[in-house]
Protein backbone atom coordinates (compact mmCIF):
# COMPACT_ATOMS: atom_id res chain seq x y z
CA UNK A 1 0.00 0.00 0.00
CA UNK A 2 1.32 3.43 -0.90
CA UNK A 3 2.16 5.86 1.82
CA UNK A 4 -0.70 8.17 0.81
CA UNK A 5 -3.31 5.43 0.86
CA UNK A 6 -2.06 4.22 4.21
CA UNK A 7 -2.27 7.76 5.57
CA UNK A 8 -5.81 8.15 4.22
CA UNK A 9 -6.85 4.85 5.78
CA UNK A 10 -5.43 5.78 9.17
CA UNK A 11 -7.04 9.21 8.84
CA UNK A 12 -10.45 7.64 8.47
CA UNK A 13 -9.76 5.28 11.38
CA UNK A 14 -8.78 8.23 13.57
CA UNK A 15 -11.90 10.23 12.84
CA UNK A 16 -14.20 7.19 12.93
CA UNK A 17 -15.40 7.87 16.51
CA UNK A 18 -16.65 11.25 15.35
CA UNK A 19 -18.25 9.78 12.21
CA UNK A 20 -20.18 7.27 14.35
CA UNK A 21 -21.09 9.93 16.89
CA UNK A 22 -22.19 12.34 14.19
CA UNK A 23 -24.40 9.76 12.48
CA UNK A 24 -25.94 8.42 15.71
CA UNK A 25 -26.22 11.55 17.83
CA UNK A 26 -26.51 14.37 15.27
CA UNK A 27 -27.48 13.48 11.69
CA UNK A 28 -29.78 10.60 12.62
CA UNK A 29 -31.58 12.61 15.32
CA UNK A 30 -31.92 15.63 12.97
CA UNK A 31 -33.81 13.47 10.47
CA UNK A 32 -35.75 11.73 13.25
CA UNK A 33 -36.62 15.10 14.75
CA UNK A 34 -38.10 16.28 11.43
CA UNK A 35 -40.19 13.10 11.25
CA UNK A 36 -41.28 13.25 14.91
CA UNK A 37 -42.44 16.83 14.39
CA UNK A 38 -44.98 15.49 11.89
CA UNK A 39 -46.57 13.26 14.53
CA UNK A 40 -48.68 13.70 17.58
CA UNK A 41 -46.93 11.31 19.92
CA UNK A 42 -46.21 10.62 23.56
CA UNK A 43 -43.62 7.98 22.52
CA UNK A 44 -45.73 5.29 24.21
CA UNK A 45 -49.25 4.61 23.02
CA UNK A 46 -49.92 7.36 20.47
CA UNK A 47 -48.20 7.84 17.13
CA UNK A 48 -50.67 9.83 15.03
CA UNK A 49 -49.42 11.28 11.78
CA UNK A 50 -50.62 14.90 11.65
CA UNK A 51 -48.44 16.34 8.87
CA UNK A 52 -47.77 20.04 9.35
CA UNK A 53 -50.39 20.44 12.07
CA UNK A 54 -47.82 20.93 14.82
CA UNK A 55 -46.40 23.85 12.90
CA UNK A 56 -49.74 25.49 12.17
CA UNK A 57 -50.69 24.92 15.81
CA UNK A 58 -47.50 26.70 16.82
CA UNK A 59 -48.40 29.74 14.74
CA UNK A 60 -51.66 30.19 16.65
CA UNK A 61 -50.36 29.06 20.07
CA UNK A 62 -50.33 32.19 22.22
CA UNK A 63 -47.84 30.67 24.68
CA UNK A 64 -45.45 29.72 21.89
CA UNK A 65 -45.63 33.29 20.61
CA UNK A 66 -45.07 34.63 24.08
CA UNK A 67 -42.08 32.32 24.54
CA UNK A 68 -40.65 33.44 21.21
CA UNK A 69 -41.13 37.09 22.14
CA UNK A 70 -39.61 36.63 25.60
CA UNK A 71 -36.60 34.78 24.23
CA UNK A 72 -36.12 37.49 21.60
CA UNK A 73 -36.29 40.12 24.36
CA UNK A 74 -33.61 38.22 26.29
CA UNK A 75 -31.36 37.61 23.29
CA UNK A 76 -31.60 41.17 21.92
CA UNK A 77 -30.69 42.54 25.34
CA UNK A 78 -28.02 40.03 26.36
CA UNK A 79 -26.01 39.88 23.13
CA UNK A 80 -25.16 43.62 22.97
CA UNK A 81 -25.09 44.10 26.75
CA UNK A 82 -22.67 41.26 27.44
CA UNK A 83 -20.50 42.15 24.46
CA UNK A 84 -20.17 45.76 25.62
CA UNK A 85 -19.55 44.81 29.26
CA UNK A 86 -17.03 42.12 28.36
CA UNK A 87 -15.22 44.43 25.95
CA UNK A 88 -15.23 47.28 28.47
CA UNK A 89 -13.71 45.16 31.23
CA UNK A 90 -11.15 43.65 28.86
CA UNK A 91 -10.03 47.09 27.65
CA UNK A 92 -9.72 48.35 31.23
CA UNK A 93 -7.72 45.27 32.27
CA UNK A 94 -5.46 45.65 29.24
CA UNK A 95 -4.13 49.07 30.28
CA UNK A 96 -1.14 47.51 31.98
CA UNK A 97 -2.70 47.66 35.42
CA UNK A 98 -0.98 45.92 38.31
CA UNK A 99 -2.26 42.51 39.34
CA UNK A 100 -4.05 41.84 36.07
CA UNK A 101 -4.31 38.12 36.88
CA UNK A 102 -6.09 38.86 40.15
CA UNK A 103 -8.69 41.17 38.59
CA UNK A 104 -9.19 38.80 35.68
CA UNK A 105 -9.93 35.99 38.13
CA UNK A 106 -12.59 38.02 39.94
CA UNK A 107 -14.35 38.96 36.73
CA UNK A 108 -14.16 35.46 35.31
CA UNK A 109 -15.10 33.44 38.40
CA UNK A 110 -18.91 33.72 38.03
CA UNK A 111 -18.60 32.04 34.61
CA UNK A 112 -17.31 28.76 36.06
CA UNK A 113 -20.14 28.37 38.56
CA UNK A 114 -23.10 26.15 37.70
CA UNK A 115 -26.09 28.10 36.40
CA UNK A 116 -28.25 26.36 39.01
CA UNK A 117 -26.17 27.70 41.91
CA UNK A 118 -26.01 31.11 40.21
CA UNK A 119 -29.79 31.20 39.77
CA UNK A 120 -30.40 30.17 43.39
CA UNK A 121 -28.03 32.88 44.58
CA UNK A 122 -29.56 35.63 42.43
CA UNK A 123 -33.05 34.64 43.45
CA UNK A 124 -31.93 35.51 46.95
CA UNK A 125 -30.18 38.73 45.86
CA UNK A 126 -33.42 39.78 44.15
CA UNK A 127 -35.54 39.20 47.26
CA UNK A 128 -37.86 42.26 47.16
CA UNK A 129 -37.85 42.95 50.91
CA UNK A 130 -34.47 41.94 52.29
CA UNK A 131 -32.44 41.13 49.16
CA UNK A 132 -29.03 42.63 48.56
CA UNK A 133 -30.09 44.65 45.53
CA UNK A 134 -33.00 46.43 47.13
CA UNK A 135 -31.03 47.09 50.31
CA UNK A 136 -28.30 48.78 48.27
CA UNK A 137 -30.93 50.79 46.41
CA UNK A 138 -32.49 51.74 49.75
CA UNK A 139 -29.20 53.32 50.82
CA UNK A 140 -29.72 55.78 47.97
CA UNK A 141 -33.33 56.27 48.95
CA UNK A 142 -34.66 54.24 46.05
CA UNK A 143 -37.54 51.85 46.57
CA UNK A 144 -36.46 48.90 44.38
CA UNK A 145 -38.91 46.97 42.21
CA UNK A 146 -40.11 43.47 43.09
CA UNK A 147 -37.63 42.05 40.53
CA UNK A 148 -38.40 38.43 39.66
CA UNK A 149 -41.85 38.67 41.24
CA UNK A 150 -42.89 41.51 38.95
CA UNK A 151 -44.14 40.79 35.45
CA UNK A 152 -42.38 43.86 34.16
CA UNK A 153 -39.03 43.34 35.92
CA UNK A 154 -38.65 39.55 35.82
CA UNK A 155 -37.00 39.39 32.38
CA UNK A 156 -34.69 42.37 33.05
CA UNK A 157 -33.66 40.56 36.27
CA UNK A 158 -32.59 37.49 34.30
CA UNK A 159 -30.81 39.71 31.78
CA UNK A 160 -28.88 41.50 34.54
CA UNK A 161 -27.88 38.18 36.01
CA UNK A 162 -26.52 37.16 32.60
CA UNK A 163 -24.23 40.20 32.67
CA UNK A 164 -22.58 38.66 35.74
CA UNK A 165 -21.40 35.88 33.43
CA UNK A 166 -19.70 38.20 30.93
CA UNK A 167 -16.29 36.93 32.11
CA UNK A 168 -16.00 34.22 29.46
CA UNK A 169 -16.32 36.70 26.61
CA UNK A 170 -14.02 39.07 28.49
CA UNK A 171 -11.19 36.51 28.47
CA UNK A 172 -11.58 36.05 24.71
CA UNK A 173 -11.45 39.84 24.23
CA UNK A 174 -8.31 40.02 26.39
CA UNK A 175 -6.67 37.40 24.18
CA UNK A 176 -7.73 39.39 21.11
CA UNK A 177 -6.34 42.64 22.54
CA UNK A 178 -3.01 40.94 23.18
CA UNK A 179 -2.88 40.00 19.52
CA UNK A 180 -2.98 43.58 18.25
CA UNK A 181 0.53 44.53 17.06
CA UNK A 182 1.97 47.49 18.99
CA UNK A 183 3.39 48.90 15.76
CA UNK A 184 -0.11 49.96 14.80
CA UNK A 185 -0.42 52.07 17.94
CA UNK A 186 2.99 53.57 17.33
CA UNK A 187 2.09 54.44 13.77
CA UNK A 188 -1.16 56.02 14.97
CA UNK A 189 0.74 58.05 17.56
CA UNK A 190 3.20 59.29 14.96
CA UNK A 191 0.20 60.39 12.92
CA UNK A 192 -0.89 62.34 15.96
CA UNK A 193 -3.78 60.19 17.20
CA UNK A 194 -4.90 60.62 20.80
CA UNK A 195 -5.96 57.72 22.98
CA UNK A 196 -9.65 57.94 22.04
CA UNK A 197 -8.80 58.12 18.36
CA UNK A 198 -6.44 55.13 18.77
CA UNK A 199 -9.23 53.15 20.42
CA UNK A 200 -11.66 53.70 17.56
CA UNK A 201 -9.14 53.65 14.70
CA UNK A 202 -6.89 50.78 15.84
CA UNK A 203 -8.31 48.76 18.74
CA UNK A 204 -11.89 48.36 17.52
CA UNK A 205 -11.09 47.52 13.86
CA UNK A 206 -8.37 45.05 14.86
CA UNK A 207 -10.72 43.47 17.37
CA UNK A 208 -13.66 42.99 14.96
CA UNK A 209 -12.88 39.27 14.30
CA UNK A 210 -13.00 38.66 18.07
CA UNK A 211 -16.16 40.74 18.42
CA UNK A 212 -17.71 38.74 15.60
CA UNK A 213 -16.77 35.43 17.24
CA UNK A 214 -18.21 36.53 20.58
CA UNK A 215 -21.42 37.88 19.03
CA UNK A 216 -22.07 34.63 17.14
CA UNK A 217 -21.42 32.49 20.23
CA UNK A 218 -23.61 34.81 22.27
CA UNK A 219 -26.47 34.62 19.76
CA UNK A 220 -26.35 30.80 19.82
CA UNK A 221 -26.16 30.65 23.61
CA UNK A 222 -28.71 33.31 24.47
CA UNK A 223 -31.53 31.82 22.39
CA UNK A 224 -31.12 28.61 24.39
CA UNK A 225 -31.73 30.29 27.76
CA UNK A 226 -33.52 27.82 30.01
CA UNK A 227 -32.17 27.02 33.48
CA UNK A 228 -32.36 30.64 34.66
CA UNK A 229 -36.11 30.98 34.24
CA UNK A 230 -36.71 27.34 35.15
CA UNK A 231 -35.07 27.85 38.55
CA UNK A 232 -35.74 31.48 39.40
CA UNK A 233 -39.26 32.06 38.17
CA UNK A 234 -40.54 28.81 36.62
CA UNK A 235 -41.47 30.94 33.62
CA UNK A 236 -43.59 33.36 35.64
CA UNK A 237 -44.96 35.70 36.73
CA UNK A 238 -47.75 35.39 34.18
CA UNK A 239 -45.34 33.71 31.71
CA UNK A 240 -43.17 36.83 31.59
CA UNK A 241 -40.03 34.67 31.62
CA UNK A 242 -41.32 31.69 29.65
CA UNK A 243 -38.54 31.00 27.13
CA UNK A 244 -38.58 28.79 24.04
CA UNK A 245 -36.53 25.99 25.60
CA UNK A 246 -38.53 26.12 28.83
CA UNK A 247 -41.74 25.82 26.78
CA UNK A 248 -40.20 22.97 24.78
CA UNK A 249 -39.24 21.20 28.02
CA UNK A 250 -42.75 21.60 29.40
CA UNK A 251 -44.51 20.46 26.24
CA UNK A 252 -42.18 17.51 25.67
CA UNK A 253 -40.90 16.28 28.98
CA UNK A 254 -43.71 17.28 31.32
CA UNK A 255 -46.82 17.03 29.11
CA UNK A 256 -45.45 14.41 26.67
CA UNK A 257 -46.34 16.18 23.42
CA UNK A 258 -43.06 15.13 21.87
CA UNK A 259 -44.12 15.94 18.30
CA UNK A 260 -44.97 19.48 19.29
CA UNK A 261 -41.73 19.78 21.28
CA UNK A 262 -39.76 18.70 18.21
CA UNK A 263 -41.44 21.36 16.08
CA UNK A 264 -40.65 23.97 18.77
CA UNK A 265 -37.02 22.88 18.53
CA UNK A 266 -37.12 23.54 14.79
CA UNK A 267 -38.56 26.99 15.43
CA UNK A 268 -35.62 27.65 17.76
CA UNK A 269 -33.15 26.34 15.20
CA UNK A 270 -34.70 28.45 12.44
CA UNK A 271 -34.45 31.62 14.52
CA UNK A 272 -30.83 30.91 15.57
CA UNK A 273 -29.92 30.12 11.97
CA UNK A 274 -31.46 33.36 10.70
CA UNK A 275 -29.52 35.49 13.17
CA UNK A 276 -26.25 33.60 12.67
CA UNK A 277 -26.66 34.01 8.90
CA UNK A 278 -27.39 37.73 9.30
CA UNK A 279 -24.22 38.01 11.39
CA UNK A 280 -22.23 36.08 8.78
CA UNK A 281 -23.58 38.12 5.87
CA UNK A 282 -22.96 41.39 7.65
CA UNK A 283 -19.44 40.28 8.55
CA UNK A 284 -17.99 41.34 5.19
CA UNK A 285 -19.12 44.89 5.92
CA UNK A 286 -17.61 45.31 9.36
CA UNK A 287 -15.22 42.48 10.25
CA UNK A 288 -11.66 43.43 9.47
CA UNK A 289 -9.66 40.32 8.54
CA UNK A 290 -6.43 42.01 7.56
CA UNK A 291 -3.51 40.32 9.27
CA UNK A 292 -0.42 42.35 10.04
Amino acid at each position, binding site marked *: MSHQRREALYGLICISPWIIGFLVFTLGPIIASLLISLFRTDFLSTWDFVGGRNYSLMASDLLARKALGNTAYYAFAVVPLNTVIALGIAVLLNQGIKGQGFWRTIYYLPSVVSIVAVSMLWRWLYHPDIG*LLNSILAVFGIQGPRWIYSEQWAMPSIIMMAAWGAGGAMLIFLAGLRGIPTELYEAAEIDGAGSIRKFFAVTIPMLTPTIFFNVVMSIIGS*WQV*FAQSFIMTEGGPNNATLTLVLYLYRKGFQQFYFGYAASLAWLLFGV*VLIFVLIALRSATAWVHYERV
Partner: protein
Amino acid sequence: MTSNGAVIRTDRPQVRRFRFLRRPKDFALRCLLYVAVMIGAVAFAIPFYWMVRTAVMPGREVYSWPPVWIPSEIQLQHFAAPFRAWPFERWFLNSGIVATLTVLGVVTSASIVGYGFACLRFRGRDQLFLIVLASMILPQQVVLVPTYLLFVRLGWNNTFLPLIVPVWLGPPFFIFLLRQFFMTIPREMLEAAYIDGCSPLGTYFRIALPLSLPALGVCAIFAFTFAWNDFLYPLIYLTRIDLYTVAIGLRLLQGMLGRNIQALMAAATLGALPTILLFFIAQRYFVQGIVITGVKG
Protein backbone atom coordinates in the same frame (compact mmCIF):
# COMPACT_ATOMS: atom_id res chain seq x y z
CA MET B 1 5.06 64.48 22.72
CA THR B 2 4.44 61.27 20.87
CA SER B 3 7.41 60.72 18.58
CA ASN B 4 10.01 60.52 21.34
CA GLY B 5 8.15 57.62 22.94
CA ALA B 6 8.40 55.39 19.90
CA VAL B 7 12.05 54.63 20.59
CA ILE B 8 11.45 53.44 24.15
CA ARG B 9 11.29 49.67 24.20
CA THR B 10 9.98 47.77 27.17
CA ASP B 11 8.99 44.16 27.51
CA ARG B 12 5.45 45.11 28.53
CA PRO B 13 3.86 46.44 25.35
CA GLN B 14 0.52 47.27 26.96
CA VAL B 15 2.27 49.65 29.37
CA ARG B 16 4.05 51.36 26.52
CA ARG B 17 0.79 52.05 24.77
CA PHE B 18 -0.27 54.30 27.59
CA ARG B 19 2.98 56.00 28.44
CA PHE B 20 1.18 59.33 28.03
CA LEU B 21 -0.14 58.54 31.48
CA ARG B 22 3.26 59.32 32.95
CA ARG B 23 2.50 62.99 32.61
CA PRO B 24 1.24 64.45 35.88
CA LYS B 25 -2.17 65.51 34.60
CA ASP B 26 -2.79 61.94 33.51
CA PHE B 27 -1.97 60.56 36.92
CA ALA B 28 -5.59 61.35 37.72
CA LEU B 29 -6.74 59.30 34.73
CA ARG B 30 -4.64 56.39 35.97
CA CYS B 31 -6.30 56.61 39.38
CA LEU B 32 -9.68 56.72 37.68
CA LEU B 33 -8.79 53.53 35.80
CA TYR B 34 -7.97 51.70 39.03
CA VAL B 35 -11.15 53.00 40.68
CA ALA B 36 -13.24 51.74 37.74
CA VAL B 37 -11.58 48.31 37.78
CA MET B 38 -12.04 48.10 41.53
CA ILE B 39 -15.72 49.14 41.54
CA GLY B 40 -16.41 46.57 38.83
CA ALA B 41 -14.54 43.87 40.73
CA VAL B 42 -16.46 44.63 43.91
CA ALA B 43 -19.74 44.40 41.98
CA PHE B 44 -18.68 41.02 40.57
CA ALA B 45 -17.47 39.69 43.93
CA ILE B 46 -20.32 40.87 46.18
CA PRO B 47 -22.80 38.14 45.14
CA PHE B 48 -20.27 35.48 46.22
CA TYR B 49 -19.71 37.28 49.51
CA TRP B 50 -23.46 37.53 50.04
CA MET B 51 -23.89 33.81 49.43
CA VAL B 52 -21.26 32.79 51.98
CA ARG B 53 -22.34 35.50 54.43
CA THR B 54 -25.92 34.25 54.36
CA ALA B 55 -24.80 30.66 54.90
CA VAL B 56 -22.62 31.31 57.96
CA MET B 57 -24.37 34.12 59.86
CA PRO B 58 -26.61 33.58 62.90
CA GLY B 59 -30.22 33.05 61.85
CA ARG B 60 -31.61 36.17 63.51
CA GLU B 61 -29.33 38.40 61.41
CA VAL B 62 -30.44 37.02 58.03
CA TYR B 63 -33.79 38.78 58.07
CA SER B 64 -32.80 41.98 59.84
CA TRP B 65 -33.27 45.35 58.16
CA PRO B 66 -31.09 47.12 57.23
CA PRO B 67 -29.06 44.02 56.31
CA VAL B 68 -26.09 42.96 58.40
CA TRP B 69 -22.95 43.06 56.25
CA ILE B 70 -20.55 41.40 58.66
CA PRO B 71 -21.94 38.48 60.68
CA SER B 72 -21.46 38.84 64.44
CA GLU B 73 -20.32 35.22 64.57
CA ILE B 74 -19.62 32.40 62.11
CA GLN B 75 -21.80 29.31 62.30
CA LEU B 76 -21.21 26.29 60.11
CA GLN B 77 -24.20 24.16 61.03
CA HIS B 78 -26.15 25.09 57.89
CA PHE B 79 -23.63 23.25 55.76
CA ALA B 80 -24.86 20.04 57.37
CA ALA B 81 -28.53 20.65 56.54
CA PRO B 82 -28.43 19.50 52.89
CA PHE B 83 -26.74 16.25 53.97
CA ARG B 84 -29.29 15.54 56.68
CA ALA B 85 -32.36 15.48 54.48
CA TRP B 86 -31.01 14.23 51.16
CA PRO B 87 -28.16 12.08 49.84
CA PHE B 88 -26.16 15.23 49.08
CA GLU B 89 -22.82 13.39 49.34
CA ARG B 90 -24.17 10.81 46.91
CA TRP B 91 -24.96 13.59 44.40
CA PHE B 92 -21.37 14.79 44.68
CA LEU B 93 -20.18 11.27 43.99
CA ASN B 94 -22.53 11.00 40.99
CA SER B 95 -21.40 14.33 39.56
CA GLY B 96 -17.81 13.25 40.16
CA ILE B 97 -18.35 9.96 38.29
CA VAL B 98 -20.09 11.67 35.36
CA ALA B 99 -17.49 14.45 35.17
CA THR B 100 -14.54 12.03 35.37
CA LEU B 101 -15.90 9.72 32.68
CA THR B 102 -16.67 12.78 30.54
CA VAL B 103 -13.11 14.02 30.91
CA LEU B 104 -11.71 10.59 29.96
CA GLY B 105 -14.02 10.42 26.95
CA VAL B 106 -13.08 13.88 25.74
CA VAL B 107 -9.37 13.33 26.21
CA THR B 108 -9.37 9.99 24.36
CA SER B 109 -11.82 10.51 21.53
CA ALA B 110 -11.44 14.21 20.73
CA SER B 111 -7.67 13.85 20.78
CA ILE B 112 -7.48 11.02 18.25
CA VAL B 113 -10.14 12.60 16.03
CA GLY B 114 -8.47 16.00 16.22
CA TYR B 115 -5.18 14.35 15.24
CA GLY B 116 -6.87 12.74 12.25
CA PHE B 117 -8.29 16.07 11.08
CA ALA B 118 -5.06 18.01 11.62
CA CYS B 119 -2.18 15.69 10.78
CA LEU B 120 -3.40 13.06 8.33
CA ARG B 121 -4.32 13.82 4.73
CA PHE B 122 -7.27 12.14 3.08
CA ARG B 123 -9.91 13.06 0.57
CA GLY B 124 -12.93 14.92 1.93
CA ARG B 125 -11.15 15.81 5.15
CA ASP B 126 -11.75 19.55 4.97
CA GLN B 127 -15.41 19.11 4.00
CA LEU B 128 -15.91 16.77 6.96
CA PHE B 129 -14.25 19.30 9.24
CA LEU B 130 -16.69 21.94 8.01
CA ILE B 131 -19.46 19.62 9.21
CA VAL B 132 -17.77 19.49 12.64
CA LEU B 133 -17.83 23.28 12.73
CA ALA B 134 -21.44 23.46 11.55
CA SER B 135 -22.57 20.99 14.21
CA MET B 136 -21.17 23.32 16.88
CA ILE B 137 -23.77 25.89 15.81
CA LEU B 138 -26.68 23.43 16.02
CA PRO B 139 -28.68 24.02 19.23
CA GLN B 140 -28.68 20.75 21.16
CA GLN B 141 -32.45 21.06 21.65
CA VAL B 142 -32.99 20.06 18.01
CA VAL B 143 -31.65 16.59 18.74
CA LEU B 144 -32.97 16.45 22.31
CA VAL B 145 -36.33 14.78 21.60
CA PRO B 146 -35.09 12.04 19.21
CA THR B 147 -32.05 11.18 21.33
CA TYR B 148 -34.39 10.94 24.32
CA LEU B 149 -36.48 8.42 22.39
CA LEU B 150 -33.31 6.51 21.46
CA PHE B 151 -31.93 6.37 25.00
CA VAL B 152 -35.27 5.45 26.54
CA ARG B 153 -35.69 2.63 24.01
CA LEU B 154 -32.21 1.42 24.91
CA GLY B 155 -33.31 1.41 28.55
CA TRP B 156 -30.67 4.00 29.42
CA ASN B 157 -32.85 6.38 31.41
CA ASN B 158 -31.80 6.47 35.04
CA THR B 159 -28.26 5.54 34.09
CA PHE B 160 -25.33 7.85 33.42
CA LEU B 161 -24.90 6.44 29.89
CA PRO B 162 -26.87 9.21 28.05
CA LEU B 163 -24.60 11.78 29.66
CA ILE B 164 -21.36 9.92 28.92
CA VAL B 165 -21.62 7.87 25.71
CA PRO B 166 -22.02 10.84 23.28
CA VAL B 167 -18.89 12.40 24.76
CA TRP B 168 -16.85 9.29 23.94
CA LEU B 169 -17.79 9.65 20.28
CA GLY B 170 -16.04 12.85 19.32
CA PRO B 171 -17.61 15.98 20.86
CA PRO B 172 -17.26 18.74 18.16
CA PHE B 173 -16.10 21.57 20.43
CA PHE B 174 -13.15 19.58 21.75
CA ILE B 175 -12.28 18.16 18.33
CA PHE B 176 -12.10 21.75 17.11
CA LEU B 177 -9.93 22.83 20.04
CA LEU B 178 -7.46 19.94 19.71
CA ARG B 179 -7.37 20.10 15.91
CA GLN B 180 -6.34 23.75 16.20
CA PHE B 181 -3.56 22.65 18.52
CA PHE B 182 -2.35 19.74 16.35
CA MET B 183 -2.22 22.09 13.35
CA THR B 184 0.68 23.86 15.06
CA ILE B 185 2.88 20.72 14.97
CA PRO B 186 5.27 21.12 12.00
CA ARG B 187 4.62 18.70 9.20
CA GLU B 188 8.38 17.95 8.97
CA MET B 189 8.31 16.50 12.45
CA LEU B 190 5.60 14.01 11.51
CA GLU B 191 7.31 13.10 8.22
CA ALA B 192 10.55 12.42 10.03
CA ALA B 193 8.67 9.88 12.14
CA TYR B 194 7.16 8.25 9.02
CA ILE B 195 10.62 7.93 7.47
CA ASP B 196 11.86 6.27 10.64
CA GLY B 197 9.15 3.67 10.12
CA CYS B 198 6.41 4.93 12.44
CA SER B 199 2.83 4.24 11.36
CA PRO B 200 0.43 7.21 11.57
CA LEU B 201 -0.85 5.78 14.85
CA GLY B 202 2.69 5.33 16.14
CA THR B 203 3.34 8.97 15.27
CA TYR B 204 0.27 9.92 17.26
CA PHE B 205 1.41 8.07 20.36
CA ARG B 206 5.10 8.99 20.15
CA ILE B 207 4.96 12.58 18.91
CA ALA B 208 1.54 14.22 18.73
CA LEU B 209 0.11 12.94 22.02
CA PRO B 210 3.12 13.88 24.22
CA LEU B 211 3.24 17.33 22.61
CA SER B 212 -0.47 17.89 23.18
CA LEU B 213 -0.52 17.23 26.93
CA PRO B 214 -1.02 20.93 27.83
CA ALA B 215 -3.87 21.23 25.31
CA LEU B 216 -5.38 18.02 26.68
CA GLY B 217 -5.21 19.60 30.13
CA VAL B 218 -7.26 22.53 28.83
CA CYS B 219 -9.84 20.14 27.40
CA ALA B 220 -9.97 18.15 30.62
CA ILE B 221 -10.70 21.27 32.67
CA PHE B 222 -13.38 22.52 30.29
CA ALA B 223 -14.96 19.07 30.06
CA PHE B 224 -15.06 18.71 33.83
CA THR B 225 -16.68 22.12 34.25
CA PHE B 226 -19.26 21.52 31.50
CA ALA B 227 -20.15 18.10 32.90
CA TRP B 228 -20.35 19.31 36.50
CA ASN B 229 -22.58 22.24 35.55
CA ASP B 230 -24.76 20.44 33.00
CA PHE B 231 -28.41 20.79 33.89
CA LEU B 232 -30.73 19.86 31.00
CA TYR B 233 -29.44 16.33 30.31
CA PRO B 234 -29.42 15.10 33.92
CA LEU B 235 -32.83 16.73 34.40
CA ILE B 236 -34.28 14.71 31.54
CA TYR B 237 -32.55 11.37 32.05
CA LEU B 238 -32.21 11.04 35.82
CA THR B 239 -35.41 10.74 37.80
CA ARG B 240 -34.23 8.58 40.73
CA ILE B 241 -33.08 10.81 43.57
CA ASP B 242 -30.11 8.60 44.43
CA LEU B 243 -28.85 9.03 40.87
CA TYR B 244 -29.13 12.84 40.85
CA THR B 245 -26.14 15.01 40.04
CA VAL B 246 -25.38 18.09 42.14
CA ALA B 247 -26.94 20.44 39.57
CA ILE B 248 -30.39 18.84 39.63
CA GLY B 249 -30.03 17.99 43.30
CA LEU B 250 -29.68 21.68 44.11
CA ARG B 251 -32.92 22.33 42.31
CA LEU B 252 -34.66 19.67 44.39
CA LEU B 253 -33.24 21.25 47.54
CA GLN B 254 -34.57 24.61 46.44
CA GLY B 255 -38.05 23.17 46.22
CA MET B 256 -37.78 21.43 49.60
CA LEU B 257 -35.72 23.86 51.66
CA GLY B 258 -37.29 26.94 50.08
CA ARG B 259 -37.87 28.59 53.45
CA ASN B 260 -34.42 27.90 54.82
CA ILE B 261 -32.34 30.34 52.81
CA GLN B 262 -29.25 29.66 54.93
CA ALA B 263 -29.22 25.95 54.12
CA LEU B 264 -29.87 26.79 50.46
CA MET B 265 -26.95 29.18 50.29
CA ALA B 266 -24.75 26.63 52.07
CA ALA B 267 -25.76 24.02 49.49
CA ALA B 268 -25.18 26.44 46.61
CA THR B 269 -21.72 27.26 48.01
CA LEU B 270 -20.81 23.59 48.23
CA GLY B 271 -22.16 22.91 44.73
CA ALA B 272 -20.18 25.80 43.27
CA LEU B 273 -16.96 24.94 45.10
CA PRO B 274 -15.52 22.12 42.92
CA THR B 275 -15.40 24.17 39.69
CA ILE B 276 -14.14 27.25 41.54
CA LEU B 277 -11.34 25.21 43.15
CA LEU B 278 -10.51 23.63 39.81
CA PHE B 279 -10.29 27.08 38.27
CA PHE B 280 -7.88 28.27 40.95
CA ILE B 281 -5.69 25.18 40.68
CA ALA B 282 -5.57 25.21 36.89
CA GLN B 283 -6.01 28.90 36.11
CA ARG B 284 -3.16 29.05 33.64
CA TYR B 285 -4.63 26.25 31.48
CA PHE B 286 -8.08 27.80 31.60
CA VAL B 287 -6.88 31.09 30.20
CA GLN B 288 -4.73 29.35 27.63
CA GLY B 289 -7.67 27.28 26.43
CA ILE B 290 -9.74 30.35 25.84
CA VAL B 291 -6.89 31.81 23.83
CA ILE B 292 -6.89 28.75 21.58
CA THR B 293 -10.65 28.75 21.00
CA GLY B 294 -11.14 32.48 20.80
CA VAL B 295 -8.37 33.89 18.71
CA LYS B 296 -8.18 31.18 16.12
CA GLY B 297 -11.96 30.79 16.01
